[in-house]
């Protein structure tokens, strides 16, 4: 099993969710996140004083998938999240040792 984590622009999250549902993913976890990449954040000016805002608001999406689904899921997320402009985010995949469904105690692929 794999954990696919994606950091995307907040206004793309609905498209990403729709793409994953179309693919057949039945659950996901979404949280608000802040951060920056190479482009850093932006600056704001208040009464002539400039403030650099490094941490840009993002959405962090996590979804557990079978090994074989990892690559197409990543592709679906990237396609749906891409705007082509800087700050579109990142997606990464990590191995997962065990998954348990809390309600039933099912484990592994059954629990996805």
């Amino acid at each position, binding site marked *: 099993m794999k954990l696919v984590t994606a950091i995307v622009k907040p206004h793309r999250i609905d498209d990403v969710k729709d793409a994953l549902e179309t693919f057949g993913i039945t659950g996901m976890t979404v949280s608000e996140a802040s951060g920056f990449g190479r482009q850093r954040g932006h600056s*704001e000016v*208040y*009464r*002539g*004083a*400039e*403030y650099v805002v490094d941490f840009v608001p993002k959405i962090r999406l996590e979804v557990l998938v079978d090994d074989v689904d990892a690559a197409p899921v990543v592709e679906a997320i990237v396609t749906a999240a891409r705007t082509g402009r800087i700050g579109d985010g990142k997606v990464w995949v990590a191995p997962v040792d065990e998954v348990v469904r809390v309600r039933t105690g099912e484990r592994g692929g059954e629990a996805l």
Partner: protein
Amino acid sequence: METALDSGLTAWMLVSASFVLLMTPGLALFYGGMVRTKSVLNMMMMSFGAMAVVGVVYVLWGWSMSYGSDSVAGLFGSPVTNFGLADTITDANGDFVIDGGLPVVVDVGFQATFAIITVALISGAIADRARFGTWMIFSALWVTFAYFPMAHMVWGGGLLGGDGPFTSIAEPIDFAGGTVVHINAGAAALVLAIIVGRRQGFGTVAMRPHNLPLVMLGAALLWFGWFGFNGGSAYGADGVAGLAWVNTTTATCAATLGWLAVERIRDGHPTSLGAASGVVAGLVAITPAAGSVSPVGSIALGALAGAFCASAVGLKFRLGFDDSLDVVGVHLVAGLWGTVAIGFLATDTGLLYGGGFAQLAVQVIIAVVAVAFSVMVTAVIGLALAVTMGWRISEDDESAGIDATAHAESGYDFGGLGAPRSTAFRGASSSVPASAADAVNTSEVRS
């Protein structure tokens, strides 16, 4: 003296007084939005606190010191002669005293609102870090020793008004409070910012406004209230009030444009905080001049006020004093400009209207005297409070946020992680059997 009641005037002055009173809660929003989330309530409480203190003090000795019948050397009225509005509201027959068609008690209310907003204005210079108790005491002392004497000197028949010695040059003009309100508050703010000292992280930590819509709403309410401030200062439901109304509008619009133009050129973006600030700068600058300039003159006065103030607000970073919300950069600068600009733009006596230098000279004199007086009095009061009560909250409290430590409240409750746990209400005894509602509160419902 018109001793018959003028009901139209009385109605207008009651409305104006209500408008001006609204300015202080408006200021609370304006200032509250500009501070960080952790100190929004304290910032608003400083306005409401000033309102509470001055509202009481004014009727006790404020009116007597400002406009009472017993002047002390032209500096201030005796606080005891008309203490508690004695011999002010009604005459020996029990009839309301009427002055110029207006019941004097209505004027008391109108003038009290000016004293309230002036004190509240100062609070913006010491955001986030001043002890609330010290601020409350300061409010009472400052309004007594700085505001009431200044009001007496300018409007109450004292040294800086039409009956004073400078009238031999030209009659000083302060229509609605350039010296009494704005220079007075702005100079006091400068002194207090220096005495109280900088906030932790001033100049290095980002202290962004936490809610700009609040700032815009506050500026809008200030603008609305200012129609009472300037329009009411005509003391008539007449053409002068109308002129003041129009000038207040045009100068403010021009100042907004002036501020935004400076921002667009200097920083690349016209900002909402700049628009709100330009509004206030224009309102301040037109205050002393509202009755003596033409609407076209008010455009020039306002546009320059916006440009001057937009340029001035950055000075605190260069000079190193933490005038947190730019009370000096807006009220002192625009107050000085508006007061001096009368010397150029007054339609009867201004330099640009062929009136010569006399009006300009006298306007500069009253501005300088007002600054000197306010600085001196505020320094004495501020330093006295620094060594007795102390001005600063502890460093820990400042970093945790003054709302939580001074008032035991937080401005916003978004729930989620870190939200406060529900606990028993104070005074509830543990021996009282838990009701179903209590059980829900503490998540102890069992099936």
